[in-house]
């Protein structure tokens, strides 16, 4: 801590990187290269508006509507565009379906390419060296770290994202969900299940759909 007075006679000094970011922002604003209001808008969007709930809605719809699912798997972009899930880092989406024969898992070995419009900002573990290095090399062991054990005859396919192509995993619909509507189904779908590091479990109770 560069300044750690108990009574804080002056404003608390931000960290070195925080000051460097402030400096960049000031310089670029002065040069008219950015608009501070636009930055706030971007932050608000990713902090509050966009997140895995978008992807979960797509999954629930695909589970409920076979024609939608077929279109989504064949060519995801126009289908997602119609739902409004497009734009930054979601320009070219490919949806890969989990089946009893094949489990899909997504990584970005280069950096952290991720389908922002559907899942928001990636979690820390997705960006870590450990995940990026191991997902391709030993996917089953990585899945085991996440508590996922697949049947021996289920193949694991790992999809490496790039700046051009992003992937969303369509998890398998769990047993015991026949009577659930789309919002109830979407509530079952976790972020990790759409990256392929989790499965979607059956609802806790058979009699009540989750809120």
């Amino acid at each position: 801590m560069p300044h750690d007075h108990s009574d804080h006679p002056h404003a608390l000094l931000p960290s070195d990187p925080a000051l460097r970011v402030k400096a960049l922002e000031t310089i670029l604003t002065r040069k008219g290269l950015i608009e501070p209001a636009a930055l706030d808008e971007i932050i608000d969007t990713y902090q509050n508006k966009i997140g895995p709930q978008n992807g979960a809605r797509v999954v629930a719809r695909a589970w409920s509507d076979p024609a939608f699912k077929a279109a989504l798997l064949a060519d995801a972009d126009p289908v997602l565009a119609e739902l409004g899930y497009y734009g930054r880092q979601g320009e070219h989406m490919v949806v890969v379906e989990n089946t009893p024969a094949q489990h899909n898992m997504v990584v970005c070995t280069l950096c952290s390419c991720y389908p922002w419009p559907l899942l928001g900002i990636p979690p820390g573990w997705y960006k870590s060296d450990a995940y990026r290095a191991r997902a391709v090399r030993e996917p089953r062991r990585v899945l085991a770290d996440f508590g996922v054990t697949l049947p021996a005859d289920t193949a694991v396919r790992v999809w490496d994202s790039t700046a051009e192509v992003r992937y969303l995993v369509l998890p398998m619909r769990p047993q015991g969900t026949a009577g659930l509507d789309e919002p109830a189904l979407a509530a079952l779908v976790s972020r990790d299940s759409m990256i392929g590091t989790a499965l979607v479990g059956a609802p806790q109770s058979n009699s009540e759909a989750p809120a």
Partner: protein
Amino acid sequence: MSDCISHSAPEPAFLEPWHAQVFALTVSLNEAGRFSWADWVEAFSATLRRNGLSRELDGGADYFNAWLQTLEAILAAQGSASPQEVALVRRDWEEAYLNTPHGDPVRLAR
């Protein structure tokens, strides 16, 4: 080096305000056409590779430090913000913080 991938609790999109700021700066510059996202990914991957050679990156603060390094390098190469400019304005901000009474909004004097 740990191979463990921790993944338990849901986490906020950004752990610190400056992570959000540097992310938004980058997205905003990309959308203004200052660089393509493919160029960004290439430069950022190279930084991660370089930084990862000396130690295991954890995907948290390390990740955004690499992000900031990359953005600084791109802006310096483009002449949009030279290292000298950044150092000067950074110092101005630091002085502003040190000279502003606690609780008051911090502003640059010039």
